[in-house]
């Protein structure tokens, strides 16, 4: 009995000592975070989480004078599960702020709940255009991108700089694919280019032969918007079909993103894509980020990895800006829209009035450097808005990009 | 429903059934009078069970016509023939093994009643069903196992239950496919007793291997051989028939 009492005493003293040392009078800031950690999207989810963990480590899990407690949940890439997890984080864990989500469907499903509960949330990846356009929420801040955003820039670039006049697109058949192709088509056609054909492939596609066989050989370029396994398979078959070297391959950034690039071979070399990030971006901030990330996680950071490093930096900057008073949620969300942390791996960024980043779009070409494939940045469109050069009101009165 | 006086209960006219090259039932013409006790005998493979399947509608004949009470039923499905009064038992007992004995009988009682579609009222609240099922259980000495699952009762009780199910719908024609098969001697005696007490207005067509049973139960006998009718007539005519003697009965009457 005495031994137990003694032990309790020691624990009590130690606790007092520790709390005195950290000088925390306020309880920790609870951040709820969710991404898919199981199933087919787990790898991307893991990358996003890694970026966040890395940033939180850098700041020692402290912000605004308070300790940070991170609560991680797996949304399984199923919207209803995401909503259940959001409810758990908000109603049970009573988090002050939320971050995460990968898929647009989850993003859309969460939005009404986030809005009704008045919980500030950061979307680092979800790229569905309308989330910061016609269906935006004042409680959601996007630190990633909108699907059509880099493609507006890329459509123009393809016509003017790459000299491409006719294109066949081949893209995943869901909102992300439609918005990417839609954005590309809009500026490419406006410049004078012609989309000869749009091929849509199901997310479950295993064989691209039926699609590749439809591509006319006299077209200037093929625009591919793919992800993960489909991107790998497509690259291989593009070469097998004898298209590589004969028809220029361009595409959306995910097609050659670093989550798949290390698994590709020489067949990927020369592919030109557009995105707001490249692991090969030659800036001090990115070099430091990429080197640390590689050392810690033993792989090249993907755009997913960078997304929540930057998203985390953004969130922490906002918390610092209000001295950690996260209980004032309106102030927090206002700060999220106002702050402008510098030295981001992806370069300068600010948020527009709709909660979407204005950021650089990089034109990247796949090259082999020091034995490794990388997305070498060959051109930069600075400060690209989700509305490109169009008038926001007019843009929003037009329909969303569809098939 | 029932035909005019003198109309046979069941009439088969030149009915055949082929399975590929095999003529399982070959040009059979047969008449069963209302209330008749009629046996069909013949060696294994003579086509007796196939004949029953054709009568009950399990499958259609390749050619020929089937008439019930003067009505042509050749194209009708089993449940439609059951509605016209055809009931049968099976050589290998066909019960509802996971249901209780009483539920087995209740199902059979409900089969020809419109209330089988009643969805939101428990069956147990239908007093007349319960009463009729109770009477059948008493009649077939199954009351003591009424709540047992059908698969757990003795083989003899299962055979009796099979017959009780067939009788629950008040059939006009009852097809019994070897009801004695596999029974012990006391069970056979009991089953014979039950068969002899059947309502005389029901026409019974019986397949039986046991000649004693067939000839004592049935006034009329049809002998099938390789799918064809070898003989057809009163039991005395048939037992005196030379062809039958040669082909079938010779020496094996007491098998």
């Amino acid at each position: 009995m005495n031994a137990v009492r003694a032990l309790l005493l020691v624990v009590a003293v130690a606790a007092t000592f520790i709390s005195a040392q950290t000088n925390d009078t306020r309880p920790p800031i609870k951040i709820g975070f969710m991404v898919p950690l199981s199933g087919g999207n787990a790898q991307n989810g893991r990358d996003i989480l890694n970026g966040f963990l890395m940033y939180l480590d850098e700041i020692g899990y402290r912000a605004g004078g308070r300790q940070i407690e991170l609560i991680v949940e797996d949304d399984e890439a199923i919207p209803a599960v995401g909503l259940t997890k959001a409810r758990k984080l908000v109603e049970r864990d009573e988090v002050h702020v939320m971050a995460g989500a990968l898929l647009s469907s989850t993003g859309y499903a969460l939005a009404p709940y986030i809005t009704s509960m008045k919980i500030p949330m950061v979307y680092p990846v979800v790229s569905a255009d309308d989330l910061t356009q016609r269906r935006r929420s004042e409680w959601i801040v996007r630190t990633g991108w909108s699907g059509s955003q880099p493609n507006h820039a890329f459509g123009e670039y393809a016509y003017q700089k790459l000299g491409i006049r006719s294109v066949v697109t081949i893209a995943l058949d869901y909102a992300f694919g439609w918005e990417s192709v839609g954005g590309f088509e809009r500026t490419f056609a406006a410049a004078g280019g012609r989309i000869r054909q749009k091929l849509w492939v199901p997310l479950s596609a295993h064989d691209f032969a039926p699609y590749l066989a439809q591509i006319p050989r006299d077209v200037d370029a093929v625009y591919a918007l793919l992800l993960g396994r489909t991107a790998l398979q497509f690259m291989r078959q593009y070469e097998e079909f004898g298209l590589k070297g004969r028809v220029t391959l361009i595409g959306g950034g995910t097609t050659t993103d670093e989550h798949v690039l290390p698994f590709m071979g020489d067949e990927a070399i020369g592919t030109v894509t557009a995105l707001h990030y490249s692991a090969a971006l030659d800036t001090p901030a990115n070099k430091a980020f990429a080197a640390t990330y590689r050392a810690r996680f033993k792989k090249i950071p993907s755009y997913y990895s960078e997304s929540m490093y930057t998203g985390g930096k953004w969130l922490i900057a906002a918390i610092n800006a209000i001295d950690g008073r996260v209980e004032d949620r309106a102030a927090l969300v206002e700060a999220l829209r106002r702050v402008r942390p510098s030295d981001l791996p992806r370069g300068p960024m600010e948020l527009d009035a709709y909660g979407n980043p204005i950021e650089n779009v990089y034109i990247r070409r796949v090259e082999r450097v020091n034995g490794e494939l990388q997305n070498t940045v060959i051109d930069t469109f600075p400060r690209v808005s989700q509305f490109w050069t169009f008038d926001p009101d007019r843009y929003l009165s037009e329909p969303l990009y569809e098939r | 429903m029932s035909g005019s006086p003198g109309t046979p209960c069941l009439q088969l006219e030149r009915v055949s059934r082929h399975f590929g090259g095999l003529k399982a039932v070959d040009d059979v013409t047969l008449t069963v009078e209302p209330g008749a006790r009629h046996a069909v005998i013949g060696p294994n493979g003579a086509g007796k069970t196939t004949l029953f399947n054709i009568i009950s509608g399990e499958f259609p004949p390749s050619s020929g016509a089937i008439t019930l009470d003067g009505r042509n039923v050749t194209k009708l499905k089993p449940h439609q023939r059951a509605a016209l009064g055809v009931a049968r038992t099976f050589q290998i007992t066909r019960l509802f093994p996971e249901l209780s004995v009483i539920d087995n009988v209740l199902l059979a009682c409900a089969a020809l009643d419109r209330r089988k579609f009643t969805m939101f009222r428990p069956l147990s609240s239908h007093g007349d069903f319960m009463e009729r099922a109770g009477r059948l259980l008493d009649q077939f000495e199954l009351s003591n196992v009424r709540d047992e699952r059908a698969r757990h009762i003795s083989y003899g009780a299962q055979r009796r239950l099979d017959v009780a199910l067939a009788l629950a719908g008040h059939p006009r024609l009852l097809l019994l496919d070897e009801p004695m098969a596999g029974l012990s001697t006391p069970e056979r005696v009991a089953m014979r007793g039950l068969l002899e007490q059947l309502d005389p207005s029901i026409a019974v067509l019986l397949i039986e291997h046991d000649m004693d049973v067939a000839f004592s139960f049935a006034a009329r006998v049809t002998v099938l051989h390789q799918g064809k009718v070898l003989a057809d007539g009163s039991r005395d005519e048939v037992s005196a028939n030379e062809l039958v003697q040669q082909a079938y009965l010779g020496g094996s009457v007491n098998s």
Partner: protein
Amino acid sequence: MAEPRATAPDWRLVVAGLGAVFLLAAPPFLSAYWVGLLTQVVILGILAMSLDLLIGYTGLPSLGHAGFFGVAAYGVGILSTTYQAGVVASIAGGFIAGTGLAALLGLIVSHVRDVYFLMITMALGMVLWGLSFRWIPVTGGDNGIAGIPRLETLIGLPATGPIPFYYLALVVFAACIVLMMVLVKSPFGLTLQGIREHEPRMRSLGFNTWLHGYLSYVCAGAFASVAGIMWAYYNGFVSPTYLDLTASSELFLMVTLGGPATLVGPVIGAGAIVILKNVMSAYTARWLLILGIVYIVTILWAPQGLWNLGRHRRS
């Protein structure tokens, strides 16, 4: 009439009684999160019971059952957002969509049995999923439809939030379980079990077994629609994942885990899976593995499902 054999009070009675008391009395003392999980349990419980009508009673193993659930949910989602329909019209529309679809597809599927039934229902389920995914102008495609208003407000409950919605769902659940329990004890319900046990014998007794099988499919579709309507209001959005193959097979798992042909068993199965999923996944990303182990253990130790533990086994 003879009394059923006297037995000691079954543990099932005790568990069911405790469960009912818990569902009724516990929520005010639970956090909103747990109330939300219980709401999921009762809604998915309705869905699992509806599938049990098919699997357990009629003996038709459907792998596309989430289709009706999803179509009813889409009915509510589309009517209440795109068309701004009232609550009665939205609910009626969802119910008619799900049940009507079951009545239509039933014409196709109820001609086949066993593994063929499994395959054709799976195929139809995938067609429905494809439709929800591809018919973008109506369904919103992959993104689904969000912004379904709250049911508590629509029907004029004095309070909104997790607890009022929970009790609303519980009332619907209670009505469904009572209706289904009467249904399986009804003459019609017995005919379904007869089909499961021996369909040819049913035919020779005079049952048009096709019709009974078809009607059971429609009934199951109707109850699944009720669950789908509640699910749409619970989540406030609809998406193709409601009716994909994963949803249908998880549902299948709830029924087989809990015990087919018991109604209560599938509710327990739904409860076990919802709770396991949410509690386990807070601790490990490998919760699917744990669910798999639970399932294997159940198959080995209680092959007839949890609710049939200690009962006679079917050969």
